[in-house]
């Protein structure tokens, strides 16, 4: 097992290198120069100043030299200074990581806490109106664009009903440990982020549960006189949940990158929104750092998924 983990981690290195090269090229291929962008309209900036700044940031070098100097610094943990904020890019991202993780984990919790019971309920009452309602929800939940749902929620809940705040993690001026205030802020964005996943899990778990409860060992459990609850929750659900581990793996990173839209809608100060802003303002170091952090998360969560899968289901062997 450890050998397997180690090999996967080694494989991750060329993958991440490849990603960095692609993003480096994509961002650099675009015409336009960040120095000119940032000095645009500023008075008293001469052509010499611009050239000086370009040299300072190494932007006058050939691309491959720029890449090599970037990667040699990254190996030492230095992702360079943000062109826009004049602070270390990685530090800026980590400051925003907390907000994104809060949102992602809350959404993940909602997905599991709501999606799994819905799926099991639908499967156990197959063909009833409960099942139909849950199935319709399972399909519709997918067909609603996140940004639209978010904006509608703001208009309905915040503007019209004035129930919940529409932006940020905290009311300005409140203590950072004001938990009730934080909860009020996170309710809407986390639900909007979770919706598609809730729909997905309920569909997924419905098929899984239906699959499992028609198997022989479940019939045996019934036959030896166990109660319905014991059969479903102790015997059936455990096996129905195994494939969920696969689904769980990619979910964290998907939530982190999918949170971009929700963060944008709710002005949530997270990593996705920040990386997007950097992409629009050509803040190269921040784009690179943002992509590398997100990809590393994704690679790690794939690994965790595969290992967890092997642990949960002894029938699977990793090699």
């Amino acid at each position, binding site marked *: 097992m450890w050998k397997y983990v180690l090999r996967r981690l080694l494989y991750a290195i060329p993958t991440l290198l*490849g990603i960095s090269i692609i*993003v480096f090229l994509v961002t650099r*291929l*675009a015409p336009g120069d960040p120095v000119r962008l940032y000095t645009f309209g500023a008075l008293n900036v001469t052509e010499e100043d611009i050239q000086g700044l370009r040299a300072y940031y190494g932007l006058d070098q050939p691309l491959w030299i720029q890449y090599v100097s970037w990667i040699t610094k990254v190996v030492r943990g230095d992702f360079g200074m943000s062109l826009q904020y004049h602070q270390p890019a990685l530090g800026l991202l980590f400051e925003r990581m907390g907000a994104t993780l809060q949102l992602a984990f809350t959404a993940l919790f909602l997905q599991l806490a709501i999606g799994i019971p819905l799926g099991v309920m639908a499967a156990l009452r197959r063909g009833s109106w409960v099942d139909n309602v849950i199935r319709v929800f399972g399909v519709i939940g997918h*067909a609603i*664009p996140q*940004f*639209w749902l978010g904006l509608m929620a703001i208009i309905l809940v915040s503007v019209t009903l004035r129930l919940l705040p529409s932006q940020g993690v905290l009311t300005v001026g409140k203590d950072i440990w004001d938990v009730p205030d934080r909860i009020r802020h996170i309710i809407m964005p986390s639900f909007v982020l979770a919706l598609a996943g809730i729909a997905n899990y309920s569909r997924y778990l419905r098929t899984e549960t239906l699959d499992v409860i028609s198997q022989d060992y479940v019939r045996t459990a019934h036959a030896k006189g166990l109660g319905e609850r014991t059969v479903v929750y102790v015997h059936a659900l455990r096996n129905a949940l195994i494939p969920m581990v696969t689904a769980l793996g990619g979910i964290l990173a998907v939530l982190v990158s999918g949170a971009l839209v929700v963060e944008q809608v709710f002005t949530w100060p997270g990593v996705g929104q920040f990386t997007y802003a950097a992409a629009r303002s050509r803040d190269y170091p921040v784009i690179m750092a943002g992509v590398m952090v997100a990809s590393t998360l994704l690679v790690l969560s794939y690994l965790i998924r595969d290992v967890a899968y092997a642990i949960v289901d002894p029938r699977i062997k990793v090699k």
Partner: protein
Amino acid sequence: MATTAVSTRRQAAQHDLAARKQRSLWRDAVWRLFRNRAAIAGLAVIVFAAFVAIFAPIIAPYSPIQQNTPKQLMEPIWTRWFGSQFTDSGYLLGSDELGRDILTRLMYGTRVSLIVGFVPVAVIFVVGASIGMVSGYVGGWVDNLLMRFTDIIYAFPDLLFVIIIVATLRGTELGTAMDGLLLIFVALAIVNWVGLARLIRGQVLSLKHREFIEAARAIGATPVRIMIRHLFPNVLAPVIVSLAFAIPGAMLTEATLSFLGIGVRPPTPTWGAMINEGFIVFQATPWPVLLPAFCISIILLAFTFVGDGLRDALDPRMKI
């Protein structure tokens, strides 16, 4: 007498058997698909949308960019019976903040949505199928190389990658071609071919040592012929299903890009951009937001139903 009766019955039975044999896997699948009411409803919606998209210039009452500010923010005609004073029988679904006809813009918006659904998915199909097939069948260092490359794209958070490509390359020639549509095609294709390639590779790996492939090789079929004539038809079922689900995904991404303001350039009407613009005037009237949102949801639902139907029809045991 008796013998003829038996023989006719036998003939009839043989005839029956022959008739049944003709039903191929695909005909069975089509039959199952057509018995699925949700899938048929979805298919009907898609055909209708395609019709609207193709004939938009003929059936649309106005030009999608024709402004008429005195008639701005008209509400749909049916709100008249609920007391709205801002309706105009010239604007069946109302008008937006610049007095452009919403019905017309929705019709033209159908074009963008369908094109964004189908074109990148066609590219994904060609690229993903070729790479997956070659990687799986040839194996060895070719497989290794292609799969390492696939891993790179696979480790990229999809939406983030699309957004970065589109946001940074918008100013280039690629980004301005076809009002920005081309760049969106490219971004969607780059990100999404990986899943298909991996799917096909896996299928090919499990098939390539089966007898029918060995038989084909034994009679001297070339690798290309084996891949196209023997392997491809056998991996087609899961491929169709995964492509059917890729289409609504691409549409949703386009709408999201339009919402972020990096989609197809205005004034080309797209549903996502209409929603985005509509929110500015939402306090005055909700319809410029609600109508395109309704269209997006309906078309996404339609494709999801067809995808579900295809999956059930092609292989009831398959789970995607």
